[in-house]
């Protein structure tokens, strides 16, 4: 339990640091006057709106107090409103966040769906042609940036073969698997390589254990030994890495969403940056940070569930 509490504190610190960082950046480089001028420009509002905007952003308070107020309302779900569209930021995030989460989720499912069988097979037949081929091609997979892969996939599967749309609909549903497949695959390939290598290494170690020999002696089938006995104890570092990667994937969605014109958090962020819509940038970064923190916390819990030994070892440490 202590371990969980420590992690929770750590993650909250990450969350605060990330949001404060983005929040203060705006005001370190621009005087409050500049900020208001920009927002007035975005709004195309009359000069009398100046006072209202200053009030909106609590510009009369010192930076820390202002950040505190922003955080306070953010915690109650109020992220301010967009100066370019006048919509509340939280409303736009609400329609877009599920798509980004779905993208990350599908990418992880795809990556694991390929990496787990491949990693197990590679470990089971270590040093076979299959194993060597996989580890060689994994170096190649890691060297393809996700956006390059996205462009290749669009070229072959959308433009040449016409199997999938190259641009997603503006009212994309999270269950529209056909539209999600190419973007998810673009994010997944690099992770397949990482997961596969990790699982292979851990699995080879597990397969040396006595209880695997015991299982063999009992006459269990290979499939049962690999998937039921060896997979779970071999999946610990895999699970941790999924947490870290899910965070990186959140970053990757920004560019993948842009390529596929997907109306998610990433396109919202880029759009807001171009419009200089400060509160939207802040809101999106805060939500991404929160998502990242929550994913990592859940992964940590899962970690303890997977291997009961972790609980006692970690709390003793």
């Amino acid at each position: 339990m202590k371990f969980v509490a420590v992690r929770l504190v750590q993650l909250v610190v990450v969350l605060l640091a990330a949001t404060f960082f983005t929040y203060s950046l705006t005001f370190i480089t621009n005087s409050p006057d500049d900020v208001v001028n920009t927002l007035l420009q975005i709004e195309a509002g009359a000069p009398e709106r100046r006072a209202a905007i200053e009030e909106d952003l609590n510009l009369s308070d010192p930076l820390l107090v202002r950040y505190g107020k922003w955080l306070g309302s953010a915690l109650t779900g109020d992220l301010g409103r967009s100066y370019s569209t006048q919509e509340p930021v939280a409303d736009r995030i609400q329609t877009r966040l599920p798509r980004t989460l779905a993208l990350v989720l599908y990418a992880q499912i795809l990556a694991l769906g390929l990496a787990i069988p491949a990693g197990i097979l590679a470990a089971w037949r270590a040093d076979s042609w299959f194993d060597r081929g996989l580890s060689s091609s994994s170096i190649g997979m890691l060297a393809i940036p996700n956006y390059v892969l996205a462009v290749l996939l669009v070229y072959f599967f959308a433009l040449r073969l016409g199997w999938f749309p190259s641009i997603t609909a503006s009212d994309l549903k999270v269950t529209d698997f056909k539209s999600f497949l190419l973007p998810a695959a673009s994010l997944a390939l690099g992770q397949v390589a990482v997961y596969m290598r990790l699982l292979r290494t851990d699995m080879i170690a597990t397969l040396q254990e006595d209880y695997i020999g015991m299982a063999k002696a009992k006459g269990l089938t290979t499939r049962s030994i690999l998937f039921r006995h060896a997979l779970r104890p071999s999946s610990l570092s895999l699970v941790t890495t999924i947490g870290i990667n899910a965070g990186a994937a959140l970053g990757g969605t920004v560019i993948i969403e842009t390529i596929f014109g997907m109306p998610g958090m990433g396109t919202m962020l880029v759009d807001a940056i171009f419009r200089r819509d400060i509160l939207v940038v802040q809101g999106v970064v805060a939500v991404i940070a929160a998502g990242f923190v929550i994913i990592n916390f859940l992964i940590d819990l899962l970690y303890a569930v997977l291997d009961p030994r972790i609980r006692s070892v970690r709390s003793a440490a």
Partner: protein
Amino acid sequence: MSDLLPEHREDRTVGLAETGGASPAADAPETTDDGRSKKRRLGVGFWLSAVWLVIVAALTMLAPYLGFVDKPGTFSIANPTAAGPSGAHWFGTNKNGDDLFSQVVYGGRVSLFIAFAVVILGFISGGLVGMIAGFFRGRIDRVISAIIDVLLAFPALVLALAMIAVFASDGSTVRPNMPVVIGALSILSVAPLARITRGITLAFSEREFVTAARTLGATNGRILRKEILPNVIPPMAVFSLTVIAVVIVAEGALAFLGLSVSAPASTWGKLINVGRPELENAPHITFFPAGVMFLTILALNYIGDVLQSKFTVREGAL
């Protein structure tokens, strides 16, 4: 070596399917993956990677002095079309009739310059911070490590985007210049290099020669400079290769979003992005810069992997 040949053929087909067969050299660095069995020798893949990097470095650095590389903006053709590769234009031309090979070379100049600048920044600042944390330990180490952890934990691209949004604003548009892009991307290099340096320093501070120097009355500063620094630099340099690859990719991502260095400067990422509208009719405009970028990252990663297994840094020390 010879007993491995059949497997290599397998690797090749897999590699090509994966990359869309970007160019004949695509399979080159993949041909060996026997780092474990042959610790002593560097292998064919290593040397092929090294040759590729030398070619890329030479072309990009010497571009202004090479006759066969057109300077950006100076070329004009009577009848501009996007043509495929030919003897006169090795990578073909884009729809303005510009020679793509020259564009890739000049794009690489900017991409690689940014990557090196970012890594040097990370090398110096991350190295300094990491050495201080690893050498003095205690409270200062805890604070620095906590900051590094936060920086490592967060999706770096998102933070870089947020920084660019703020620092690169020019009136009502966003026009990032070189220093802003380098500064924003340095998030990617400072924290990892600081972390690895801290680990190495921690390990070396325990060694006998450091104790000996201290017994002889050397000051902390002297020990750091004369004893620790020379030992820390080689593994840091090796790790930097991987970081360079990461930065090239990240810069490409920014360029893709239109948030890297503004025109007229071009980078690999930008070239890939510029070709996208014509992907259907003239895919070579996108594929050549993408292939060159892929091979460069592959070569950097491969050499980094091989050298890293030579300077093994124990995970436990981190």
